[in-house]
């Protein structure tokens, strides 16, 4: 079978090389600041990098960058959260949609446009829904407000583990939080001797554009590499505010920031997993917001991913987030734009499902809608175009014409229709008018609401080993005690 998978290259090889060359020049000439972490500066210095201890600025020569690029893996195999089952690969031609962990609000269907602070029950529902979302590959727990802020990073990680088996996109917010997370991952992979080669989580690390890394981010980044947790380098340059206003200028700066992460990653661990990320965004000159679904933002993130892919590193873009305040028409078309372009440009990790308002707000309904949009994008790129002789079907066309037969009666249709057509639903409505009227004139949003309610009512949560569950709860509870928590909310449900 010959399947052609459509691909869009926004710039040619000559332009990509020039962008990389410009980024090399910036790192060699003015360098980049790694602030407040002596160990990191020691590592750079040990590798022959020029280091200014006072300012934290390091200057990277092309040779050091070239050397680091040689050892970054181009593919990362991802496993389920128990580290038992290989689910998929990330990198090269393999693209996946992920949830997103930055939300601090949730929007309820009953109060459109309004938002509130999420609590334990919201996370449980969302993780259970992600478990059932056929086209989303990573889950990502969000901010929870029914535990002290100091332990919310570990608590959401716990809940997400209990209710969803997909790999997690999740960050810790302190050294203590990171170490606890690492301890939890070891328990999740109970008895697995080859844990470091079976990753089930990724951790984002945000350099501060322009050209700076803050102490906590440096520490987390190095800890990711040390513990074999795939680390995302994810600068969020805002074009015109924290990077050049031009699209390609922002791509050059983001490339320089990512290359510095490439070098540090390989200094900490040769062959360590790294994901080449970007949250590059236009900057709205009227309101000061960072619209991540602006077409210019999508262009920048796709371009930066293509630079990463050219260098042979798995890529990530904050694509799929809508700037709309409600899961409405804007929300859907912005996500569709992002997913389609993301897949076509081979952004390996397309980060943002179920989000509203610059990713600040989670919505169960939007997650259901995005799942089906992701399905469409996957059909286009992963399904591709079967260009085999059988698919071109010349003999069949002749036969049907000669016999004056309907194609519905051919074996060819029966054998191939499920492969050729993605069957969306229940969100996308392709039914008849009479069925639409009988349903009570429901919108996609109404159907999305019903869909998730049905999943929660009818599907059982994933089975969890009781011993493991208790051990994980105990770890988070122990950390919680320092902040006055004797029992976690999950223990009282």
């Amino acid at each position, binding site marked *: 079978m010959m399947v052609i998978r459509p691909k869009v290259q926004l710039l040619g090889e000559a332009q990509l090389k020039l962008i990389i060359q410009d980024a090399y020049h910036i790192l060699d000439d003015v360098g980049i600041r790694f602030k*407040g972490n002596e160990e990191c500066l020691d590592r750079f210095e040990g590798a022959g990098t020029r280091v200014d201890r006072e300012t934290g600025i390091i200057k990277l020569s092309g040779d050091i960058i070239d050397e680091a690029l040689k050892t970054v893996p181009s593919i990362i195999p991802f496993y389920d959260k128990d580290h038992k089952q290989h689910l998929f690969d990330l990198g090269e031609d393999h693209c996946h949609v992920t949830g997103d962990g930055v939300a601090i609000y949730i929007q309820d269907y009953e109060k459109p446009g309004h938002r509130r602070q999420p609590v334990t029950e919201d996370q449980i529902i969302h993780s259970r829904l992600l478990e059932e979302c056929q086209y989303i590959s990573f889950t990502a727990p969000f*901010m929870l407000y029914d535990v002290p*802020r100091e332990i919310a*990073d570990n608590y959401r990680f716990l809940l997400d583990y209990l209710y969803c088996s997909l790999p997690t996109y999740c960050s810790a917010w302190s050294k203590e939080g990171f170490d606890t997370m690492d301890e939890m991952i070891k328990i999740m992979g109970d008895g697995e001797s080859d844990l470091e080669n079976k990753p089930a989580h990724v951790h984002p690390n945000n350099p*501060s554009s322009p050209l700076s890394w803050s102490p906590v981010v440096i520490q987390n980044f190095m800890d990711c590499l040390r513990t074999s947790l795939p680390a995302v380098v994810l600068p969020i340059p805002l074009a015109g505010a*924290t990077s050049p206003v031009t699209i390609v200028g922002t791509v050059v700066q983001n490339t320089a920031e990512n290359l510095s992460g490439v070098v540090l990653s390989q200094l900490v661990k040769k062959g360590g997993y790294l994901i080449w990320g970007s949250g590059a965004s236009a900057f709205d*000159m009227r309101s000061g*917001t960072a619209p991540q679904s602006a077409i210019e933002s999508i262009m920048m993130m796709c371009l930066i991913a293509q630079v990463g892919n050219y260098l042979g590193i798995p890529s990530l873009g904050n694509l799929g987030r809508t700037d709309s305040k409600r899961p409405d028409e804007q929300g859907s078309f912005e996500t569709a734009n992002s997913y389609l372009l993301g897949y076509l440009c081979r952004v390996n990790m397309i980060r943002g499902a179920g989000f509203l308002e610059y990713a*600040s707000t989670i919505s169960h309904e939007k997650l259901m809608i995005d799942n089906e949009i992701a399905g469409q994008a996957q059909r286009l790129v992963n399904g591709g175009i079967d260009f085999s002789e059988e698919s071109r079907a010349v003999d069949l066309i002749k036969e049907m014409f000669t016999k004056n037969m309907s194609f519905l009666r051919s074996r060819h249709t029966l054998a191939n229709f499920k492969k050729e057509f993605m069957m969306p639903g229940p969100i996308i409505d392709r039914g008849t008018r009479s069925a639409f009227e009988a349903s009570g004139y429901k919108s996609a949003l109404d159907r999305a609401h019903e869909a998730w309610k049905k999943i929660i009512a009818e599907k059982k949560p994933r089975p969890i080993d009781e011993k493991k569950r208790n051990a994980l709860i105990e770890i988070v509870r122990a950390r919680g005690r320092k902040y006055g928590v004797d029992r976690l909310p999950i223990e009282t449900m």
Partner: protein
Amino acid sequence: MEFNDLVKAMNDCNQEDALRLVRNYTEKGAGVKDILDALTEGLRELGDRFSRGEAFIPELVFGGEIFNQAMKILEPKISTAGNNQRRAKGKVLMATVKGDLHDIGKNLVISFLTVGGYQVIDLGTDVPNEKLVEAIKTEKPDVVGLSALLTTTMLGQRDFMKMLKESGLRDKVKVIVGGAPLSQAWADEIGADAYGADAVDGKNKIDAMLKNFGRG
């Protein structure tokens, strides 16, 4: 009105013209107060154009920059002219918390405040709480604006509020917090006086606080 050309240059964000006019007027012996009034009027018109959607953030930021540069030209005259100094609506101390290098939100608020007639002192990014408290003692601001973009650094705001209380300065200053991961609930939780959801909201909240505080 005299000085119309300076008002226009400010409104147009024409740095070259504005600074040249300030120098010219100063050399000709014009009153510092009149020049300051023209600069302020130009900024006010620029702010009005922004409110109507006719001017944009880069123009607003640049307008604030021109104003600051004009003030540098006028400073020697201000000190000799005694009480001719522009009467600011209030004094605001701005900073990004320790460990956080992001400053775009903070800088936007500063631009809005400058255009809005406030005196702003910017301590920059990655500012330790001790330095903030020290600056409150020496600068005696009406408001402290504290920014944090990261979930990893926002906890520093809580530590600051604690330190402010312990140093006995809590009643002397209003505190407003802002940044992507924050919310009104967070401001309430740590005992800040206000939360700025965005730069415009931040400036409006400061206006409201100082009005109630007997200023503004």
